C-alpha cells in the first residue's frame, strides 16, 4: 500500500528517536517517484535530513533540489527559526525603522527565539509561506520530537489565545515613562498592580523594559500573525492533509503511540497510517546463538500485536523492518518505501 493517498500535506509526528525524519525522507522520495513535485520540510534542530538527503547549509534559507532522478521534482528545506523570524520581521514591519528596532532589541536578539511557542510558531509561518507559494504538488512535513504534547501543532492556537488574552494589551501599555522608570499605574486594578509588582520584584526592570520595547515594536505585526495562524490551522485540518504517526517497536512504546493517536483525534486532525518503524524480524528455527535476535523479534511483534488490538481494525498499521544498514543513502530510503508498498 502507499502511505501517500491523495494528501497534499503529509505531517509526520511521533516521539524522539523513532525515525520520523527517515520516514519523511522516504515518503518524499516515493512521492517524487510517483511524479509529484514534492518538498520535504524538516524542523529538527539536529538537521538530520541534511545528512540523509545530502543537502547542506543552503537549505536553511530556501528549498534545495535533491540530486535524484525522479519524474517529480524532490526539494528539501530546513527550518532555521531565527532566520524565519528575521525574514518575517523585515517583510511585515511597517517600515525599515520599525524592522530595525525589533532586530536590534536585546530581548529579541538573546531570548525571543525560545519564548514559549515562538519556535514552533516559526515553523507554522514557514509552512504558510510554502503553502501560499503553491509550488509543490505535495509537502511532507517532519516535526520536532514531542513526548507530551503536540507542541508544534498547538503553537498556532497558543499564539491566538495569547493575542486574545489581553496579555498583549498589558505588554503594550506604556510601562515606562520617558526617563525609563516603571510607571505606577492603577488602571488595571488590583490584579494589574499585583502582577506588575510581582514582575518587578522577580525579574527586575531591565528585562521588563526590553520586553516592553520589543512588544511595542512588534505589536503591528501581531494582527497578521493571528490571521496566518488561523489559516495554517485550517490547512492542518483540511481533508487533503493527513498525519502519519511514526512509532518505535516493542511493547513499551505502545502507550506513547496510543497517546499520540488519541491527541490527534481529539484535536480533529486526520490520522493517516501508523508506521511501526525498525521491527526486528521473527526468527525461524532454533540455536543458542540466535537467542537474542529471537527475543528481539518476539518483543517487537508482541508490541505490534498489542497496538493492533487497540486500534480499529480498518486503520492501516504499517510495520517497517529494521534494515541491516543505516538510512543514510537514497538507496536505503527506497528500500524503506518498498517495505510499505509491499505491506
Amino acid at each position, binding site marked *: 500500500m502507499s502511505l501517500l493517498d491523495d494528501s497534499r500535506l503529509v505531517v509526520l509526528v511521533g516521539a524522539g528517536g523513532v525515525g520520523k525524519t527517515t520516514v519523511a525522507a522516504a515518503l518524499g522520495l516515493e512521492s517524487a517517484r510517483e511524479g509529484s513535485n514534492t518538498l520535504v520540510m524538516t524542523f529538527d534542530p539536529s538537521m*538530520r535530513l541534511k545528512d540523509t538527503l545530502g543537502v547542506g547549509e543552503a537549505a536553511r534559507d530556501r528549498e534545495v533540489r535533491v540530486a535524484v532522478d525522479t519524474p517529480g521534482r524532490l526539494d528539501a528545506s530546513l527550518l532555521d527559526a531565527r532566520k524565519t523570524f528575521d525574514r518575517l520581521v523585515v517583510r511585515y514591519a511597517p517600515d525599515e525603522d520599525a524592522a530595525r528596532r525589533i532586530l536590534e532589541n536585546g530581548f529579541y536578539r*538573546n531570548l525571543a527565539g525560545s519564548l*514559549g511557542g515562538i519556535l514552533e510558531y516559526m515553523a507554522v509561518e514557514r509552512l504558510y509561506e510554502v503553502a501560499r507559494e503553491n509550488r509543490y504538488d505535495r509537502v511532507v512535513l517532519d516535526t520536532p520530537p514531542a513526548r507530551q504534547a503536540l507542541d508544534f501543532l498547538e503553537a498556532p492556537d497558543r499564539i491566538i489565545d495569547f493575542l486574545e488574552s489581553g496579555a498583549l494589551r498589558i505588554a503594550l501599555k506604556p510601562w515606562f515613562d520617558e526617563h525609563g522608570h516603571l510607571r505606577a499605574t492603577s488602571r488595571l486594578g488590583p490584579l494589574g498592580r499585583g502582577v506588575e509588582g510581582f514582575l518587578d520584584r522577580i525579574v527586575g526592570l531591565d528585562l521588563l523594559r526590553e520586553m516592553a520595547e520589543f512588544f511595542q515594536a512588534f505589536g503591528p505585526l501581531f494582527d497578521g500573525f493571528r490571521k496566518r495562524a488561523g489559516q495554517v490551522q485550517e490547512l492542518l485540518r483540511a481533508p487533503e492533509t493527513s498525519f502519519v504517526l511514526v512509532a518505535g517497536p516493542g511493547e513499551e512504546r505502545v502507550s506513547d503511540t496510543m497517546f499520540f493517536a488519541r491527541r490527534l483525534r481529539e484535536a480533529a486532525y486526520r490520522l493517516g497510517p501508523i508506521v511501526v518503524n525498525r521491527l526486528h524480524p521473527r526468527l525461524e528455527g532454533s540455536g543458542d546463538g540466535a537467542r537474542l535476535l529471537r527475543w528481539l523479534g518476539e518483543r517487537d511483534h508482541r508490541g505490534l500485536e498489542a497496538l493492533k488490538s487497540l486500534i480499529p481494525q480498518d486503520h492501516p498499521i504499517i510495520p517497517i523492518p529494521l534494515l541491516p544498514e543505516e538510512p543514510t543513502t537514497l538507496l536505503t530510503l527506497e528500500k524503506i518505501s518498498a517495505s510499505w508498498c509491499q505491506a
Partner: protein
Amino acid sequence: MTLQDRLSRLKLLVVTGKGGVGKSLVTAALGRILARSGRRVLLLENDPRESLYQLLDIPPSDGEIVRAEPDLFLQNLRPTDVLSNVVREHLKVELLVRRVLASPVYQHFVGGAPGFKEVAILGHALRVVRGLGGAPEIDIVILDAPATGHGVTLLLAPSLVSEAIPHGPVGHLAREVAGFVSDTERCGVAIATLAEEMPIQETIELRGALDARLSRQPELLVVNGLYPPLSDADRQDPRLGLWRERRRINERELERLGEEWDGPKIELPLLPFDRGPDLLTALVRRLEPALAAPREAP
C-alpha cells in the same frame, strides 16, 4: 581514582542524550550504583509523564521526593510546579500567588520566558544538595535531562538569564546557578547514546557544544544497546545476517566516536529484557565493574 570516585564527588550529574537512547535507564543505573556505595542520591526527572519509577518498581513520585531504596530517592519535578514554586517563594500571600499564576502576563511571559524553567530546575537541584526546602539530606542529584540540544540549552540557561536580568531575585538565582553548573568539581555531565550513525553524530556535536560553549568535557559517555559480537559458529548462520550487519554498524560508529573522544566511555550490550526493573538490574551489573576500573587522573 576510579570513575566512580570521580562521580561520587559531584553534587549534580546531568545525564543527557537524544530521545530513545536509554537516558532514563542510565540515570537510574548510575543512581543505584552510587546509592549502594554510600552516597545519598536523588534522581530528578522533569517530564509530564514520569517514567523512572517504573524502572525502580515503585509507585509514581507525583511531584514529591519519594524513597526507592535506603539511599536512593526519586522526584518528578513537574514543569509547571518548578516555576510556580519560585512565585510562591517570593509572594508569600496565597491569594496573590493564585492571581499571578492565573494571569495572562504570567502564563505567557514568565511561564513561557526562555530559560526560566531551566534555571528553576537547576536551582531546585542546588537547593536539594544544600539541604534546603524540606528535602531529605542528599549528597548528589542525578538529573535525567531533556533530549540533546536541549541539554546544552539547559546548562547555558543560567548564564543567559543572568546576563539578561542582572538584578532582582531571578537574576540572583540565575547567577548562583550559573556558578554552580560551571564548577566542574561540583557539576558533571554524562552522555547516553547508541552506536548508530545519527546518535553518534549528535553525541559528537553535543560534546563539541559542551566544549565550545561551556568549556567542559563530559564525565563519561555510555554507549547503550550494542549488539554483542557473534561467535565464530554463529557468524556462519545465514539467519543472523541482520545481527552481523548491525554489529558491524556498532563497531564502525564506536570507531568514529573513538576518533573524537578518548575520555571515559562505557559500552553496554543489548539485553533480552523488557524495559523495567529486571533490565535495570542487568545493566547495573554491567555498569558497576566499568565504573570501578582505575582511571587516569584528570
